[in-house]
């Protein structure tokens, strides 16, 4: 796990709010090896989500360098960034963000429309991803017909269906009860250990953070300490066994 997938150097991101300049990320240096599972914690407004947005190519840094998989995101224009996102990143959001009019498998197939796969291959890939998250039997269900935990599992399936190396999860358990949250965290661990996905998960929940290999702390746009989570591996085993 020594080769870095994510490498940020001197990254700055600021917003204008009420005539005031808000420096959300302040000369941030952060590196994350390929195949790692990191939790990112910090108080509200510390820049966690902004960091995820920069890493996912949803936003642009005002300064510094954002390298993901060796590619400098600042050098890409809008359509290039969109194409890069479709191949290299999978997003898992707190509010699930499934398209409500599409059923589970159609939500996955939507993401695959940007790949050169045939219709039949898209269906096979989507079924396989739903099988991985244990929801193949719910593939014809629309989001409103699923529980919160099931919706988040579909969202995770969508995040991995294009087989990206990086999964960015923003408070993936924030809207879930404890049982569902543990299932989701177990699933993320499974993606990390079995599919070798690099995962960066933003969370407020220390229990959730413990499921990751490391917890990085962000405060006022600056990176603080990075802790190794001893419980991470054990929790993963327990969750998967459950």
């Amino acid at each position, binding site marked *: 796990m020594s080769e870095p997938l994510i490498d940020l150097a001197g990254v700055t991101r600021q917003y204008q709010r009420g005539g005031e300049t808000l420096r959300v990320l302040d000369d941030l240096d952060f590196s994350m090896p390929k195949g790692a599972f990191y939790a990112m914690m910090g108080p509200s407004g510390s820049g966690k989500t902004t960091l995820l*947005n920069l890493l*996912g190519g*949803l*936003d642009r840094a005002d300064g510094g360098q954002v390298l993901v998989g060796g590619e400098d995101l600042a050098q890409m224009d*809008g*359509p290039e960034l*969109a*194409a*890069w*996102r*479709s*191949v290299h990143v999978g*997003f898992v*959001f707190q509010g699930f*963000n*499934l*398209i*409500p*009019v*599409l059923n589970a498998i*159609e939500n996955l197939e*939507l*993401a695959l*429309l*940007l790949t050169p796969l045939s219709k039949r291959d898209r269906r096979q890939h989507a079924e396989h991803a739903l099988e991985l998250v244990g929801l193949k039997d719910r593939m014809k269900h629309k989001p409103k017909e699923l529980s919160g935990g099931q919706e988040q599992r579909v969202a995770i399936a*969508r995040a991995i269906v294009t087989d990206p190396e990086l999964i960015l999860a923003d408070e993936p358990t924030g809207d879930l009860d404890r049982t569902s949250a543990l299932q989701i965290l177990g699933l993320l661990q499974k993606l990390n250990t079995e599919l070798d996905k690099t995962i960066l998960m933003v969370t407020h929940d220390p229990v959730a953070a413990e499921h990751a290999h490391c917890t990085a702390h962000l405060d006022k746009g600056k990176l603080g300490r990075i802790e190794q989570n001893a419980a991470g591996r054990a929790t993963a085993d327990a969750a998967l066994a459950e």
Partner: protein
Amino acid sequence: MPFRLVLRNLLAHPLRNFLTFGSVFVAILLLCMLRGASGALANTAAEGSNDRLWVQSAVSLYVDLPLSYRAKIDAVDGVELTSRFQWFGGVYQDESNFFAQFGIDSDAFLQSYPEIEIAEGDYAAFERSGRGCIIGADLASTYGWRVGDSVPIIGQIFNRTDGSPWEFTVEAIYSARTTRVDQQTLYFHYDYLKESLEQGAARGPSGAGVYLVKTEPGANPTRVMSEIDGMFENGPLRVQTTTDGEFARQFATMLGSVPTLLNLVGGAVLFAVFFAVLNTMLMAARERVRDIGIMKALGFTDVPILGTLLVESLLLCGTAGVLAVGFVYAGQSGIARAMAGFIPGFKVDPGIALTGLGIAVGVGLLSGLIPGWAVARLTPIKALRTEA
């Protein structure tokens, strides 16, 4: 472009989309009909008979001409036949059953109207019978009248003094060879009306509304018109002689410039429906901002996102347009028959159909483009943060 998403979004709000679809359907239908009617009115002058002229009061169509004029007009060089033509204005049973009735001279009428053919009965029997009438095939069909039936008409302008309705016997049923001549009129002997008035059996204005003139073959209609007008230049009542086409146009546009009015109404309808569809698409776009954010996060660019709203709007308007044009195109002969009484020659030509389709597509394009462009250009983060 995710076509399935477009369809699902269309079906997600069935009532709203059905109403929008309906408004486009009705608007395009109306537009095609208005264009057809407007075109028919504009064409009446061009398509009129060349050897048929109409003599009317120079003051107004509402002023009757003296009966003595017939013999004088008959004497004009180039005039073959003359018929009095009197608007009767009665109703059958009540005012909801209104159709045109004219008192005519049977010896000149049929020869002046080669477009008319007798489909049932005998025109000679009509000529012989004092109270006989001939009716159009559509009129016969509407009321189930057959040859030999008695048709009571309640006078509105010409009332019988005993309060009874006028009784006409159907002697023949005519059909028209062209849509310019309607099949919903009742023609009876003008002499029946004249005698009733003279005998005191009825009250109403005496005189002829207009005179129908058939010119001799080879006669110059311009000269004949000029001669007739000149003959009555010094009274007692000045006349204005017009060609058949011009007369039909004047008759149909007595309320003013009807083609212009119809086009204005059509234009207003067009704007109204554009705003209705635009409103629907603006609502759809606003509801879908978060979905658009998701699509952007997945890697979709502005163009396919704009495409989803554009195709949705085009499907909504285009399908309604195709159905409306198809409906009016397929039913144009029926519509023409129904409108023949006041706008003869109604026709939806391919130009009108294409215009209707073009407008539907245009409305769909603009209605999808305006909100689509606005939301497609949102940044993924802004779109994702928007509450539905």
